[in-house]
């Protein structure tokens, strides 16, 4: 699993920090490092940028995984620098930001936008793999997810806009249904698509915020 993030525009970060003088920076040694949004290098770059714009950076840390409980240990180890800061700027995905909020009472600001669970196709190129819908359909879609990868999230695709294996919304976006059909054809499983797939229960996760208990 990789949580894909992109950097927020620096102007937006500056706007969030407009009433803040002293900042402590938090990166992440896993996903944000791989996405080049919150690794050691990006944290140091952010330190420099903030200092250039007149902020004081009281310290920084890059815990191995920002979304884990080890974030608590890292925060404890940096108590003094964090105490001195007015706010924390977190360069991890939203999961990491969430952990920092749990373990610190200071105001916390995000430096990234979290996009999705995805993969790195080639260096620096990411694509969405899963949106955690809570009702996995990969059994009849050859392991390729139309919920994560079809622009219309069709369960009985493809729509009439697919051309040359590409989605109508972008020539860079492969048609998920084209990929599904290709893969099922190769293994002689195309008949799987003849069944009309009934409407999906989106309430399993996308609109359900209740905590769950392990069964």
């Amino acid at each position, binding site marked *: 699993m990789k949580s894909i993030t992109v950097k927020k525009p620096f102007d937006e970060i500056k706007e969030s920090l407009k009433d803040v003088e002293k900042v402590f920076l938090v990166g992440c040694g896993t996903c944000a490092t791989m996405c080049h949004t919150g690794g050691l290098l990006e944290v140091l770059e952010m330190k420099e940028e903030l200092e250039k714009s007149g902020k004081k950076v009281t310290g920084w840390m890059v815990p191995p995984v920002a979304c884990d409980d080890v974030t608590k240990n890292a925060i404890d180890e940096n108590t003094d620098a964090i105490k001195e800061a007015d706010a924390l700027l977190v360069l991890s995905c939203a999961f990491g930001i969430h952990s920092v909020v749990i373990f610190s009472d200071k105001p916390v600001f995000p430096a990234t936008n979290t996009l999705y669970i995805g993969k790195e196709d080639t260096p620096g190129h990411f694509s969405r793999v899963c949106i955690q819908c809570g009702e996995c359909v990969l059994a009849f879609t050859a392991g390729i997810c139309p919920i994560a990868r079809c*622009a*219309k*999230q*069709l*369960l*009985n*695709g*493809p*729509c*009439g*806009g*697919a*051309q*040359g*294996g590409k989605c*109508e*919304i972008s020539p860079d976006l492969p*048609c998920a249904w*084209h990929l599904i*059909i*290709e893969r099922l054809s190769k293994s002689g499983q*195309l008949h799987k*698509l*003849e069944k*009309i*797939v*009934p*409407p*999906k229960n*989106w309430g399993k996760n996308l609109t359900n915020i209740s905590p769950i208990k392990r069964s």
Partner: protein
Amino acid sequence: MKAGSNLEKVLEGGYFAVTAEVGPPKGTSASVIRRKGELLKFYCDALNVTDNQTAIVRMSSLSGSVILREMGIDPVMQMVVRDRNRIAIQSDILGAVALGIRNVLCLSGDHQKFGNHPDAKGVYDIDSIQLVQTLKTMRDEKKFLCGEGISGEVLLFIGAVENPFADPFEYRVVRLAKKIRAGADFIQTQAVYDVNKFSKWIEMIRDRGLDKQVHILAGIIPIKSVGMARYMRDNVSGVSVPDEIITRLEGAKDVKEEGVKISLEIIDQLKGIDGIHGIHIMAVAWEDIVPVIVERAGLLPRPVL
């Protein structure tokens, strides 16, 4: 008869049907719909009212359909799954039937990215095949998607669309079969310019016996200018415009007349194809040409049933 609409009567009566499109205004004027209705009324068996086509906000298809209905015209209310969830869809259907609308055409809808609110949240709660199935269940079982009962008859003649020119070509027929199984009574296709490719597609339809289970109306978009032809070839998803059509228009003295001739030739070829039960003319921003085409194609008078 499933719904008793004029379109259903024409198709079930074995006539070669003619439908055309009425695009609602980006405003509140009912007279825009009425003017188009008056123009087309004696030349078509039913008129489609588009549902925020190309994701551009316009007067709702339900309202446009009601305005046509009041004029004695049989409307085909288009409904996309882009903007409504299953609750709104079923609710609008009940209202439409109550107001005398009998034909509904089910579509996914152009992605919101192409419209005038590209940041809008696409709903896509159910897809177009699931929409067809929902309408069939509402009509035949008098039940909502959730299984609860509906009071009163849900008189519907259910339509779906098909783009024979989208990829993967061989799979299109499998998907059309699925739409028919879901409950489609009639199909309106994307514009046909490449009659050869269209013939190959209809051959695959006939091989599966699907032409006996559904009425297929082939799409016609009259071409007004060379620019429009090029635009459709290059930018409209899933429309295939052969180069010879572009060359013909480029060489023409009267481009509009040449465009009409091309449409007439295509209609003539389509009339001879076994399994094609009519045409659907989508004269976007050129509605005036529809009566001319219908008349010159020898499709007048329209049957009075």
